[in-house]
């Protein structure tokens, strides 16, 4: 009996605590616009989750220190409520629900990864809460008819499209033979669909089409096939472990392939972990600091990179840059909407047409950004073994010439 009483009073204390704390949060309190975000601070996405959070924080500080957001003649500052989704989609959906229905948040920032964005999107859609996300590129996010989802990044199917186009171009416009290996997750499978499209468009043939398991750490079998069948291009996408495993085993097994294109090289710190063995790998990237886009807050990519490094002590990966861009989009939309009405902000977001240091941003019907192409960089090492990522395609931003075909291992 006594125990029951204790439990009862404990629970009621919690209830009271919650009901009072809810009152202190709302969409806009005083001069603060409160955004909500569930981010992977622990769990398997935690490193990219932290990049995302750093990107958000950097932009919030910058916008606030440069005068904040002006809505209806009044100045507001950004603030973000973060929760840790533990890299777990179910948890992310619960937290989105909590941010909206308990904390009263009316504007959301996206989580890290396509999978988690997929889990959150139905919730924000249900409540009509505009969400600007910067780390969910899966094509399936943009075909569901979501009205309140906006992504500042290019969709996943465009990641390695450029690589195939470039390979065909270098082959004198003739079709190429493609070998591909993709992890079985939403993102990588979308990248695969993009390659299938590109292959169809260029008449290229896919001679190896492997799917990699989630627990991937050995792709020797795929590489043996590559060695035997000698494709013109090898495409690999399996997040950081895919990139690391591919380069490790390609160098160990001395697999010669004229072009190797991957995703997630910079997140995997490829050139740092593999040094000269990673040389000549082509990597798809949403952004690179050498691009010449400009805005008033971060000036350009180089300045952003320098400021980011000063604040967080490392070179910003594209995951951080695109997250910062999401805040710029929100600011722009609030000011154009001139109101905090969710519907009006949503309409203003849909009409976004701006340039940020990260790239041009203009949303299609489905919410994806259609105004920013992907870039390809190549890992280039100098004689001292110091490696750098150089943009090689599209040509407009190229800071180095593409090395093609990749020199044979016997000649390196």
């Amino acid at each position, binding site marked *: 009996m006594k125990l029951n009483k204790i439990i009862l009073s404990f629970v009621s204390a919690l209830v009271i605590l919650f009901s009072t704390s809810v009152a202190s949060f709302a969409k806009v309190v005083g001069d603060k616009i409160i955004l909500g975000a569930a981010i992977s601070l622990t769990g398997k996405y935690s490193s990219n989750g932290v990049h995302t959070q750093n990107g958000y924080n950097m932009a919030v500080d910058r916008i606030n220190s440069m005068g904040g957001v002006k809505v209806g003649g009044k100045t507001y500052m950004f603030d973000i409520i973060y929760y840790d989704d533990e890299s777990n989609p179910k948890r992310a959906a619960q937290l989105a629900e909590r941010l909206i229905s308990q904390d009263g948040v009316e504007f959301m920032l996206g989580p890290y990864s396509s999978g988690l964005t997929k889990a959150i999107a139905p919730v924000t859609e249900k409540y009509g809460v505009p969400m600007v996300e910067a780390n969910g590129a899966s094509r399936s996010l943009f075909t569901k008819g979501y009205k309140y989802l906006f992504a500042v990044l290019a969709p996943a199917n465009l990641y390695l499209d450029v690589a195939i186009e470039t390979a065909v171009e270098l082959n004198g416009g003739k079709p190429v033979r493609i070998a591909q290996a993709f992890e079985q997750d939403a993102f990588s499978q979308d990248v695969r669909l993009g390659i299938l499209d590109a292959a169809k468009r260029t008449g290229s043939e896919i001679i190896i089409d492997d799917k990699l398991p989630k627990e991937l*750490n050995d792709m*020797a079998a795929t590489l043996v096939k590559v060695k035997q069948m000698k494709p013109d291009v090898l495409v690999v996408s399996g997040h950081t472990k895919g990139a690391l*495993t591919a380069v490790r085993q390609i160098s160990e097994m001395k697999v010669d392939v004229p072009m190797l294109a991957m995703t997630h090289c910079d997140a995997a710190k490829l050139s740092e972990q593999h040094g000269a063995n990673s040389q000549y790998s082509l990597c798809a990237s949403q952004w690179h600091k050498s691009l010449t886009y400009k805005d008033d807050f971060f000036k350009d990519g180089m300045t952003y990179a320098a400021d980011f490094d000063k604040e967080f002590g490392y070179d910003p990966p594209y995951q951080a840059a695109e997250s910062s861009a999401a805040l710029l989009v929100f600011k722009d939309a609030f000011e154009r909407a001139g109101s905090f009405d969710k519907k009006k902000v949503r309409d203003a977001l849909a009409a976004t047409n701006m340039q940020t240091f990260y790239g041009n941003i203009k949303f299609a019907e489905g919410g994806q950004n259609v105004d920013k192409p992907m870039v390809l960089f190549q890992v280039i090492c100098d004689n001292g073994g110091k490696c750098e990522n150089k943009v090689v395609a599209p040509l407009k931003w190229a800071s180095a010439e593409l090395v093609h075909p990749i020199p044979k291992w016997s000649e390196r």
Partner: protein
Amino acid sequence: MDFLVFQYPMITVQACLDGILLGVLFALIAYGMALQWGVMNIINIAQGDLVILGGYIAYFMYLYGIHPAWGVIVAPIIMYFVGIAIYKLVINKVVDRDLFISILATFGISILFMQLMNFAFGADVVLANSGYGTTMLFDNNVVLPNSKIFSAFISIVFAICLVIYMKKSKLGRAIRATAQNARAAKILGVDTEKVYAATFGINAALCGVAGALISITFTIHPYMGLPYTIRSFMIVIVAGLGNLPGVAMSGMGLGVFEEFADYILGTEFRIGSVFLLLVLILVYRRFKLSRKREYLK
């Protein structure tokens, strides 16, 4: 389905060699599991996580400029004490209990280890470069990374040392006596508590060696432990407890099976095929047991 294996005969050779080298490494992990399963009647779900922790030890040595191959010496020493600590904190409370309780307890340890490693080392996928180069055979048609050969060699060395130790040393004999009949051993003066702790420590040390080798040959990540637990479980189920040649054979068999499943069914079915094989073997074993009315020793 892919029939490259038949189109390119060299792939068969490659698959067999890759499988055997990989299988020897699996067998080392499985031997640790068989040992403590036999002695303590505990199925250690955290086996794979101990392996990954061993891998991180080698990785950190590599980060500080020490060649990761030294990890095969350092990792088992550290892991031995980690094993003893786990035994003193958790395992000694479940050792005489139901098998189910021990599975739950080690499952808990596994989750704890994953989260702690994630917390301490971050969620990045990492690896240690050995710089060992490559061996080319058959006119460059078959390639074997020297790191894999090194792993297999070290695994065999450790397995042999362990067998000799179990046969010759006092503790080894005590461990074997406890495995045969813990009560009788106790009556005859064997300190079973000490034997249990040492067994768990030795198992953790073996995981440490395997982990160091995995960081050199593959990649490590805090959440990558489970496939190693499953593989070793499977090898032990096939080989039976206390059957070292059996463990070695079934380890290599599993390695080759995985490689062929990879070539024929596709990489996506690689781990899946291991699970399927496990189910089939369990069903077959059960069938055999029910006919012969025998029990696993």
